[in-house]
């Protein structure tokens, strides 16, 4: 007798969920079963619609690298920000923690990664070209390098500090005290506030 299996659409859903970060086969199966059994509410439809909308409408802001919609970028287009400071981060997701810390009201630039030769990531893979263009066209007074405190973050900061030295701009780095190895995401608001307040010029 042939062994009973989930019907093809169920297997397909498990397969798709498994592609998500942090979701293994067991979690994928559990979520699938939950989705299929939940009554009344049109959860599956809402999720499907959200996914479709996100794919259609969310892009990357060409200037700062944060998430943007057709209406533009919630940071770059917003008036009232401090246009003398630019904060360089590794990932777009590092921006919100910095915003929440309340210590920074300037503009951002996400690199979309960091220099990591052992992981085959070099300067050309990052948004460094667009950073240079931006610094040439906008008169920032200070660039804060808000990168993580592990070896790759440090090396990226060293590289940028050298690269930006010819510009007539103050370059600073976060004070020590960020969790080693983690990105800014893993730091709490107070730690980020202190790291920003205590930043040192390089």
């Amino acid at each position, binding site marked *: 007798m042939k062994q009973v299996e989930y019907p093809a659409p169920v297997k397909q859903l498990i397969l798709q969920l498994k592609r998500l970060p942090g979701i293994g086969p067991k979690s994928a199966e559990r979520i699938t079963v939950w989705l299929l059994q939940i009554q009344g509410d049109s959860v599956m439809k809402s999720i499907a619609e959200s996914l479709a909308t996100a794919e259609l409408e969310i892009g990357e802001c060409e200037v700062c690298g944060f998430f943007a919609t057709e209406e533009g970028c919630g940071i770059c287009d917003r008036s009232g920000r401090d246009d003398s400071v630019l904060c360089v981060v590794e990932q777009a997701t590092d921006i919100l923690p910095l915003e929440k810390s309340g210590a920074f009201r300037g503009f951002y630039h996400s690199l979309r990664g960091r220099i990591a*030769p052992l992981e085959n990531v070099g300067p050309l893979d990052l948004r460094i070209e667009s950073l240079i263009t931006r610094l040439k066209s906008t008169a920032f007074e200070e660039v804060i390098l808000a990168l993580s405190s*592990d*070896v790759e973050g440090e090396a990226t900061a060293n590289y940028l500090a*050298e690269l930006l030295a010819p510009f007539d701009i103050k370059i600073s780095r976060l004070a020590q005290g960020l969790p080693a190895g983690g990105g800014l995401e893993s730091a709490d608001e107070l730690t980020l506030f202190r790291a920003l307040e205590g930043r040192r010029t390089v």
Partner: protein
Amino acid sequence: MLSSLELNQFRCFESLRLDLQPGLTIFVGNNAQGKTSILEAACAVLRLQSPRTSTLGDLIRMGPGAGKGFSVRGQYGDCELSLRHTAKGGRKLAVDGENQGRSSAYLRYSGLVVWIASDDLALVKGGGSTRRRYLDFMASQLFPLYRPALKAYDRALRSRNFLLKRDASPNWAQIDAYTKILIENGGVLTRHRSELVAALAPLAAASQKQISGQDESLSIEYQAASGTGDDLAAELLRRRPDELRRRQTLAGPHRDDLTFMVNDMPAAKFASEGQQRTLALALKLAQSHLFIGKTARPPVLLIDDVFGELDPDRRNALMEAWPEDSQKLVTTTHLDWLDSSRVDARIWKVDSAQLRQA
């Protein structure tokens, strides 16, 4: 001291629980029965590293019914230390059931370890990496900033060497982003190593005399590979043409070494086999006494397969010279050397990963 030790899925042990006493404990058995693994587990739970491997994942038990990770628990003083390691590389540390994220937080509650093994002779006869490991293992236990600096240094070094090799025409802007990290962390390593050797040298010299029972003089010199005046930045700049040719980092603590002189002659070349054995032992004894001098805490001595190999004079000298207050866990293949009328020891027989009290 370590008053209990509990192993799960560790090396050849499915599970083992062991109460330990102060003083001398001996594990006796044939080779490959699990004696050394007990010492290794003690080292892992106290120091989060093993002298036998650089990857903790190697400690997970293999074979049928093997788990996805190992755990070791140890009662050290008033603290219950717990180390869990999964095959996926996840590591969980806890002290008295409270999770500790960073190893530095965990190690604050732990004790010091001196590992003495039959292959210590490589300290004298082997390559520089053995002597650097000796320094690293010692310095990591004494200076809280040492191990983070060593890790950052190694990672930066690997990245730098990779970049030097990868491109036909090396991208120095990128390489020097790592050079800076080498210099910062290398400075920490050099400073601590040199402080360490200065404190160690007289203790080792005294141990050499004591173990040999003769007037053998020993001097130790730290040879830092960071250029004159320990200016690694200047040295790396000077070596740049060589680095371009040889495609690797040619200066820095990863090339440091120690030289030992016995009776004013380089020990690796000119000392007799006996003098070399004495020296290897003297270095480890000096480490024990250094720990006590610097921290006032007696280290746990883990002595692997040394006693059966030593001649009676050196064996007795070792038992005379080791720190009285230290707990000693000893493995041996036979007890012919043991004079139980003079030595107070608890003895465990180890056979196929099973223990019974003798």
